[in-house]
């Protein structure tokens, strides 16, 4: 009797496991914990209870540690199941260093944008530095901007700046420190691409050609913050520079979550770079998790709620913003809005570009 009861119990247990597998459910013993090293901008996403629940339903628990995406390539990755920097160059560097042959997964991306308060955007419009499309999407004219920087233009020299106490001094876009932060580094890549006549910087000759401009743009800013959260918070608090470079996702997350962005205007540089949030599996579980972040419909909707654009689901981003009233207008489709993507130099050349910008 006892033995038969034991067999019966075992059978029931097996049936339960089979049920769980077939239905994608998990008992606690089926959940694998994956350690991930992620860029800090994705921390809120991974902490969201809805994200935690969906990952759990798919058999994962993620233990996160955060670091600057740019420094991730230099970190020890032993013991991690996946790394998730916010752009491709450090991801490529990690794959090279660890000789990883599987394709990196890019679950979502977010373009770099310029933010300005509404009266400042109007000044840019009047001076031909920005345009506003019929759909309300603003475009920032990078070529004209860089020409103004090269000419040493100040805000006071522009039309219609009288009465704006915050509009004085040199015209420039405030960025983060390119040596520590990918937004600052990717912006330099876009500038260098334009300054090199629409060709990616790939050798020392073209590097020398663009060095004066990238150096000027960096040194005129003086002290730069180490990550993109700082300049954006300064902007929202009403201090800081008139033009600030941020990720679209920083603004879109606030709007998608029904929070105010004040009179903030999103300006899409006509040539920009997107941060390709790239997940690199370091273990088989990490590989599966990376795929899930790209393919799971619920996760994609949640990604959009944090302002990211899911690669495989263009509708998710506009869906998350639908019905939200905000002065910040987002481009549903970047290429349709005429926004070009500048190619980013390889990691080694980008590092040289950063050193050149910092005068090192």
């Amino acid at each position, binding site marked *: 009797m006892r033995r038969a009861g034991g067999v019966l119990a075992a059978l029931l247990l097996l049936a339960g496991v089979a049920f769980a597998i077939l239905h994608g459910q998990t008992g606690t013993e089926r959940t694998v914990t994956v350690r991930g090293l992620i860029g800090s901008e994705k921390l809120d996403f991974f*902490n969201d209870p809805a994200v935690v629940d969906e990952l759990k339903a798919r058999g994962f628990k993620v233990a996160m*540690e955060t670091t600057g995406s740019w420094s991730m390539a230099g970190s020890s990755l032993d013991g991690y199941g996946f790394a998730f920097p916010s752009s491709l160059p450090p991801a490529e560097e990690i794959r090279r260093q660890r000789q990883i042959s599987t394709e990196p997964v890019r679950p979502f991306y977010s373009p770099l944008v310029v933010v300005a308060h509404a009266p400042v955007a109007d000044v840019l419009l009047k001076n031909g530095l920005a345009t506003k499309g019929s759909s309300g999407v603003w475009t920032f004219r990078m070529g004209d901007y860089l020409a103004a920087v090269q000419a040493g233009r100040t805000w006071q020299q522009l039309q219609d700046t009288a009465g704006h106490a915050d509009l004085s001094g040199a015209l420039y876009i405030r960025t983060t420190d390119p040596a520590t932060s990918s937004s600052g580094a990717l912006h330099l890549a876009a500038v260098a691409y334009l300054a090199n006549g629409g060709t990616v910087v790939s050798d020392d000759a073209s590097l020398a050609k663009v060095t004066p401009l990238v150096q000027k743009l960096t040194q005129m800013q003086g002290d730069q913050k180490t990550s993109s*959260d700082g300049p954006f918070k*300064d902007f929202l608090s009403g201090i800081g520079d008139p033009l600030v470079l941020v990720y679209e996702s920083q603004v879109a997350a606030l709007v998608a979550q029904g*929070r105010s962005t004040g009179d903030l205007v999103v300006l899409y540089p006509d040539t920009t770079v997107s941060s390709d949030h790239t997940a690199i599996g370091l273990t088989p579980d990490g590989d599966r998790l990376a795929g899930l972040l790209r393919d799971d419909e619920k996760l994609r909707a949640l990604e959009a709620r944090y302002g990211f654009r899911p690669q495989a689901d263009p509708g998710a981003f506009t869906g998350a913003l639908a019905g939200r009233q905000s002065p910040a207008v987002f481009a549903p489709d970047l290429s349709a809005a005429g926004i070009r993507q500048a190619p980013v130099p390889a990691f080694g050349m980008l590092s040289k570009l950063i050193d050149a910008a910092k005068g090192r």
Partner: protein
Amino acid sequence: MRTRAIRRGGLAAAALALLLTGCTGDPKPREEDLSPTPKDGVLRILAGSELQDMAPVLEEARKATGVTVQFAWTGSLDGADTVSSGRADGKYDAVWFPSEHYLRLDDAAKSELVSQTPVMVSPVAVGVRSGMLSELGWGDGSQVTWGMLGDAAAAGKLTYGMADPSRSNSGFSALVAVASAFSGASAALTDADVAKATPSLQRFFTGQKLTSGSSGWLAQAYQQAYRTGAGNRVDALVNYESVLLSLNRTLPAADRLTVIRPVDGVVSADYPLSLLASAGQPARDSFQRLTKYLLRTDVQQRISEQTLRRPVTAEVAPAAGLPTDRRRELPFPGSRAVADGLLASYQNELRRPSRTVYVLDTSGSMEGSRLDALKRAMARLAGADDTRAVRRFRDREEVTLIPFASEVKAERVHQVPASAPEGELSAVQADVQGLTASGGTALYSTLEEAFRVVARQQAAAGDDRFTSIVLMTDGESNQGASEADFRSFYGQLPAGGRTVPVFPILFGEAAKGQLQGIADLTGGKLFDGTGQAAGSLDGVFEEIRGYQ
């Protein structure tokens, strides 16, 4: 177990009192309540003393998140040194200063920090006595420039207090702002900009009549001077907008300040709470819970209402009384060389020179290790090793040494020249090393003599200097004039004499009551050199430099 500031009840009133006691500038952080090892639910933060007014908010944070904050207090620039040298690792989990501008200029310090999270904002502004605005022709103060402030200072119409830029973020921010404005620099300052602005900066600094190691003490000194008449009455204070507005809440109407954010630009503090890269996972979890709480809409609202700083979220309006028109944010220098060069210029060229009198107890009880400690502390001030002009006797400074015991033993006057100061500094060294210990302690008689020396020096030179007296003693006064004698002597000093603060240093068996009385009477501040650690007297002598 938890920190005294955070746990105690009835905190709203205590917070301002703490703010006004202003105790930053200690080269060594004060950390008596700090857990020696990491603990779950505890975040150990090395912080600027400006953050003391966050106590009520952090008490509510503890209830809501279970995270208890333990603070160690230090000055912003000293804190940057602690981080860059790695001395913060393992000892603290996070840092929280008004700004990390200076810290970031050091690559080593910068790489020690992660997750820098601005929590609130306050620009460095100028609070001018409201009654003076109309006589200066400044209307409601909303259109005033740094140039107008400089002109008024140069014309003798405006005096002000400003914290020492080599120590305090508010002083450094103001120095950067005024140098940017006067040089006409359209972007981050360079050495050439600083050189170009030098004449205008010198004019501006003729109005600085009060200096201090911390922004908190400055507010306290202003209040004391008008309430009790002790120390220097100034017309204006350079300080955080939040400190000026908080001070107004405690001042009688006649003494209130109109807060001017110069229209040509400001440098703001954004109070980033930053995790040390060395912190372990439990501290990281506590850090995340706390920062998330502090950025909540309702909490941002409360922070703005209680501290009069500005919120960092767009949906929260700044508290009533905070104007919302924007100012240009002046860029901070991008290199340590420019920043340190600006500080050295301020100390050695731009500010009014100092007249500094050291009254040094060399009675018999000082024999041995005490005299050695005194010699070492004074020798550091006469030494050359001083990266950001934080302690050495400045170019153009007049230094008088008055060693005493039963009577004054000597009066040695040293004029540090405007350039090539090494020879005179060596002469100070020689005098210091020649001190010997013997005799009793005629404290008050010697102090009276120091005031007479100052009066003679002022009369002979006919100049206008930051003038102060440092009084170091290891015992009670047991000879010569009594405390009552000294009070009556002090009461009969001409008005000019009564603007000279005395900074007493408690050492050995000195009588704290006597020394505190001298500090209060003269508008000075008592410093404690009795710490057991070797070098604690060094730290105190260095800290006082911020007030000279």
